[in-house]
């Protein structure tokens, strides 16, 4: 079986299991708009390779290898859907459909960068949102990850065309800043070019910083 169909099927098992109880072959066929005979055959193949288990009652449960694949695909789906719908403004349905195609082809790096791009905005409403990024990785972070008083360097500003005011006020790549205040709700005050600037959480999340060497 080709890997697209395999990934879709495993993802469908995961989604339906999370929604309620373990699905049957019939549930899966209806969910994926495929015919039940094909789905049953594919489930057999997956069961044979140890990715899932067919229960006596006709229901399907994921085994750890299948669970891992399904979770990864579902995560990618969420990230892509969130990006397409909330950053690019696509219809939620269309974004979900498009994400179904893209989720099988997209590279690890693209997903990691997209995830970073979206992370911290606090505006993604795709449910069950989780960070796909590995923890402990070096590189630019948002201001939210540093304690007050840290001297930092602006590494990059995301959505750069959106906030001209940031640039005019002197928050530019390469500029150094001091994190003066960070509230638990994500708003920050930074000192840049000799004055203190208060930023909303959403704006602060656009600013990627590095510790100054």
């Amino acid at each position, binding site marked *: 079986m080709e890997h697209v169909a395999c990934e879709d099927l495993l993802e469908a098992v995961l989604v339906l299991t999370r929604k309620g109880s373990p699905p049957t072959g019939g549930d899966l066929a209806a969910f994926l708009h495929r015919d039940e005979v094909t789905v049953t055959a594919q489930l057999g193949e997956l069961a044979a390779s140890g990715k899932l288990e067919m229960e006596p009652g006709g229901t399907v449960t994921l085994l750890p290898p299948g669970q891992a694949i399904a979770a990864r695909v579902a995560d990618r789906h969420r990230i892509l859907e969130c990006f397409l719908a909330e950053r690019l403004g696509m219809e939620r349905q269309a974004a979900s459909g498009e994400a179904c195609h893209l989720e099988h082809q997209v590279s690890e790096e693209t997903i990691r960068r997209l995830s970073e791009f979206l992370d911290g905005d606090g505006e993604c409403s795709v449910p069950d949102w989780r960070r796909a990024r590995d923890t402990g990785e070096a590189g630019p972070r948002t201001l939210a990850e540093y304690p007050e008083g840290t001297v930092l360097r602006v590494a990059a500003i995301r959505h*750069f065309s959106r906030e*001209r*005011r940031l640039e005019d006020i002197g928050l*530019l790549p390469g500029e150094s800043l001091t994190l003066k205040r960070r509230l*638990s709700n994500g708003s920050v005050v930074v000192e840049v070019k000799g004055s203190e600037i*208060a930023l*909303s959480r959403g704006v602060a999340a656009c600013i990627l910083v590095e510790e100054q060497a």
Partner: protein
Amino acid sequence: MRFALLGNPNVGKSLIFNQLTGLGVEVSNYPGTTVELHRGATCVDREKVEIVDLPGLYSIDGDQEEEALARRILTAGDLDGAILVLNATNLERNLYLLLQVAETGIPLVVVVNMMDEAETAGLTLDLPALSGILGVEVLGTAAVSGRNTGQIIPVARARARPATVTVPYDTDIEAAIRTLGKELGAPRLAAIWALDGIGTDPVVGEAAGDLAKEIEGSHRMSVHQILALNRYTLAKEIAGMVVGKASARPGIDLDRLLSREIPGIPILAGLLLGMLLVVFTVGSFLETIIVGLFQQYLIDPIPSLGLPPLAEEIVVSVMVGLQAGFGIALPYILLFFLLLSLLEDSGYMTRAAFLADRAMHRGGMHGGAIIPLVMAFGCNVPALLAARNLGTKRERTIAAFLITLVPCSARTVIIAGMVAAFVGIPAALSIYGMVLLIISATGILLSRVTPGKQVGMILEVAPLRRPKADLVLAKSSHRVMDFLRLALPLLVVGSVVLGILDYYGILAAFEDFLAPLFVGILGLPSYAVTALLFGILRKEMAIGTLAVLAGTADLSAVMTELQIYIFAVMSVLFVPCISTMAVLSRENGWKIALLITVFTVLLGIGIGAMINLAFT
């Protein structure tokens, strides 16, 4: 002669403006914009010198309304020059604006203000060197003590000239500027603005758009970012040559208290509550006195004049209108603006906005909206005037809706005087609860449906300063005059119209017309219509009128508890008073004012009807 006065926010620009122009300041919105411009004039050597005070700006290249306006004014060609005010304690950031303004080629005089603060902070500034680099006159001033500000106009008249400094842009940008110049004859300034996406010539704009895309592709930065980087590089270099090393800033850091969640938020809550209480108690105390004086000396003696009945009705109505205007303006609006100006001038306001930002976001606004919203409990009018400081039209619209729903002190008089007195305290509190729920729900709803994008807060935290009494007074009294000019004529006309309608019995006919609605759906006596109508002049007039029409001040004798409750809910929710509507339609446009009026009428009738249905 005519000069524009411009500079970053918080550089003491308005103080300088006041010192340059003295009395006779005219405030107007620039045609077609919501940007407020102050114009003032003075006479020097028998020549009139007009000063146009632009709003505080960080840049003239941004996409904000006031930035676009500054570009238009600076390039319109009807100015003899610009007076650019810089902050001596923060020269680099201020030079950024200067470099942009220099590009327009307008004759300039540079005022480096706050020299005293720079000296306290241990900074030395080599102003002759700055003058040499920029190629224009540079004056060092300390506007707080009036040091050197008298020199500004004479120097501007005699020696304003275009700056000679130019920003060396990135080679690709310079190449694009040359291309646009050669192929389309665009001057340097027009080419730069076109590349930045803010040009006015569509042909140049289109060509520049293609070039900009190429540059952005190869630099992985927006043209605006590249320009900003280039300008800031030069600004830093100039500041480095002019400013001597600073010693560590002394003094205690109050921000350790003010901008933290604890104790910052309790302090903020305490301040707001305190302000509200002062406006509320002192305001209603003063209002009672003013309204009483009007009644005793101007309204009550009218019948003894022996005028013909219609004339008497009109004279009384005029007085009632004036009474409503002064009864609101002096106690509430003046008091509120005194307190607000204190907060603004001390720099605390920006801290309040920072702390409240997240909560305000849920209602589609940013932190700055907390002040108008809380102050609306005192009086909606100054709250609406204060809401003009909110950044975008979207925020102002949402804030306007919510402010008009907030039960102001006049509506509190109704709640207290009717519901608390005749129904009970819990019932009175339930009205507050209901209104707060409606406000939250409306805010959440409006943040979804109001057009425009949600803008995050990017706000300079102003340094804490001691407010100057004269400036605070000047600012507040200006606001009060502004309100009186706007609302008094409307109040008088409204009052006269109501009086005449009443005189000819049209009000009674209207009452009969609406009786089915009021008696049938709301369960109210039909004279409640008239009472509610008079409540539009001044909300608490609804009670007085009701008592007159009912023939007794003991409302429980003529109305059931339910009727009293419904009447109070209706007058709290439905239609803001005339003063509020006047300010609304000026600040937010008549469409928004009409929309809010219709919304509140429907809301009042809807909720009143629901309560009536639920309890009968």
